[in-house]
């Protein structure tokens, strides 16, 4: 059991939330975008923090939305992606309620 727990701690999580906000110059920004593009190409991208190691593995159909906005010189570009992972998880059989006849006594 001990060994299992260690394994779990070592492998990245698929649940959790990672947020990062910053200001960047365009050159640095391109580096971030490239990292994300590489992640899509490689099929996975990791997001880490002291208490989190989250891996996203985009595959199958990916929802993609672009919003570009300009108003009085305040510009905004939003990119959004969403997809579903673990599509073949097994239904836990033990969830079935089974009723068996009891002892007549």
């Amino acid at each position, binding site marked *: 059991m001990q060994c299992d727990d260690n394994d779990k701690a070592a492998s990245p999580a698929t649940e959790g939330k990672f947020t990062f906000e910053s200001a960047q110059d365009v050159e640095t920004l391109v580096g971030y975008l490239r990292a994300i593009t590489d992640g899509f190409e490689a099929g996975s991208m990791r997001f880490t923090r002291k208490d989190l190691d989250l891996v996203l593995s985009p*595959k199958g159909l990916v929802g993609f939305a672009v919003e570009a906005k300009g108003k009085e010189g305040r510009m905004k570009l939003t990119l959004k992606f969403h997809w*579903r992972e673990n599509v073949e998880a097994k*239904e836990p059989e033990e969830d079935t309620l089974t009723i068996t006849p009891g002892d007549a006594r």
Partner: protein
Amino acid sequence: MKFLDGVEENFRFMVLEVTKQVENALKVLEHPDPGLVVKIESRDDYIDNLKSVIENKCFSRIHTGFGGDKRAIDQARAVNIITANLERMADHAVNIVMQQQYLRDPAFIKRYDYQAFFAEIMKALHLVIRALYNQDIALAFKICRVEVTLDTLFKTNFDAILADLRKGESPENCITCHNIFRYLERMGDTILNIGEAIIFAAVGEKFKIHQYEALKQTLTQLGQEVPISDGEFHSIWGTRSGCRIGKVEGTGGRQRGSRASGVLFKEGNAAKLRNEAQNINRWKSIMPGLPPTIQAFQEDGDSASMLMEYLGGCTYQEVVLTGAPDIAANATFILLQTVHQLWSDTIRKEPVRGGYIKQLQSRLEDVYRMHPSFKTPRMGLEGLDIPAFEELLASAAELEQGLEAPFSVFIHGDFNINNIVYNHEEQRIHYIDLHRSKDQDYVQDVSVFLISNFRLPVLDLRLRERLDRVMREFLHFTRAFAAEFSDDTFEARLALGLVRSFVTSSRFEFNQRFAKEMYHRGVFLMQNLLAHSRSSCPWRGYRLPEAVLIY
């Protein structure tokens, strides 16, 4: 509808009067006329009175309780809700003509599209009586959808007004126009309430008098006493396919084995029911016991009624969603076996065309009405070309020209998973709702089957996985069937069938997010097909991206 005795006339007047108020409000906007404004104001009192009269009658009926008849009480409540909303709509008409007087330049409003609002509102008002009296859910949905259109119109006009304000147009004119549009938008809210009240009145409602008569006649012909009492007579489905269906419980003693637990009564358009009866007979000759048996059929001019065996068991949909995993797996196994036999037995080696994109195009207006944003224009993103939705459709339609099914089978025609009944005791499958059966491309049934799983509003991941599994297994099975009969274009036709089903299903989907998910998948599949077509590789090599079925 006994509750309408004494209310019916008042109610008709109510609809008529409100319609007139709305029409007159439009007239005032077109040609300001103080005389007409006075008239509108004075009619408002009459409408208020009418509303009180109807309200009193409805309440007294609700309180006397119709002898505990819940349906009648529900209908009285629905009439009351509709009346209250009509009265509110009339108030908005008055508000609009009041606002109109504040326009410094009465012609100013003509730069905006107020006519479109009025056209939509009138459309909904014209449907109210028919939808309520016929308990017509399809019409009620049409009424509800008007609200969505009005909201979109409001946004467009609101933006235009804002732009004019920024340009320095007269604030008096702009703000007054905005107020007028706000009232028009609020009329939309009242319309939605009306549509919902009609659905409330219709769902689970008992048959109309003439349907009751038709059933009585049909049963009498069978030499049976009319076995109907309140408790025995359920309306189990609405009017989605234009027929009303009810179930009459078995009266005991006449039962044949476990199947005959009652009879099902259907009443509706004669041609449609006759067609269904013919289909049932053909299904019976192909596989006895697959369809319900017809116990009586009676035509009366344009309408007909039919008594069918009521099949025990539950729908495949219920099994998939609520059955124990082994039972669900077993139901799927039996279903696939049955389908394989039916397809193999009815195969005709003559090419047929499904015409999926054409089917989609014929329903496009309904899709747009529900989701106007789906009509996307051609766009560009940093040099990348994003085609307009309708351009994609046109290209897909052209591509479809080159794709025909090498053979036909006798298809169900509406192979939704709730049109399949699974009887666990007898270990067999039944087909119901067979008015669309014909010799066609089996892809028609395959795509409808798959999407009827996909579009279930189930978000719970474990249940979703059950649906995924059913879709996966069914797809696997149909792929094997296609290979067995050397159907080289199956995958491409299936993609087209799914495009049709994804996009057209969105017209019944109120959840905007899920509707979009389906629409996007349809668009994705078209682009996927077109990319393959451009590569000029043969269609034999095309494979449907299964990921489209995972949500």
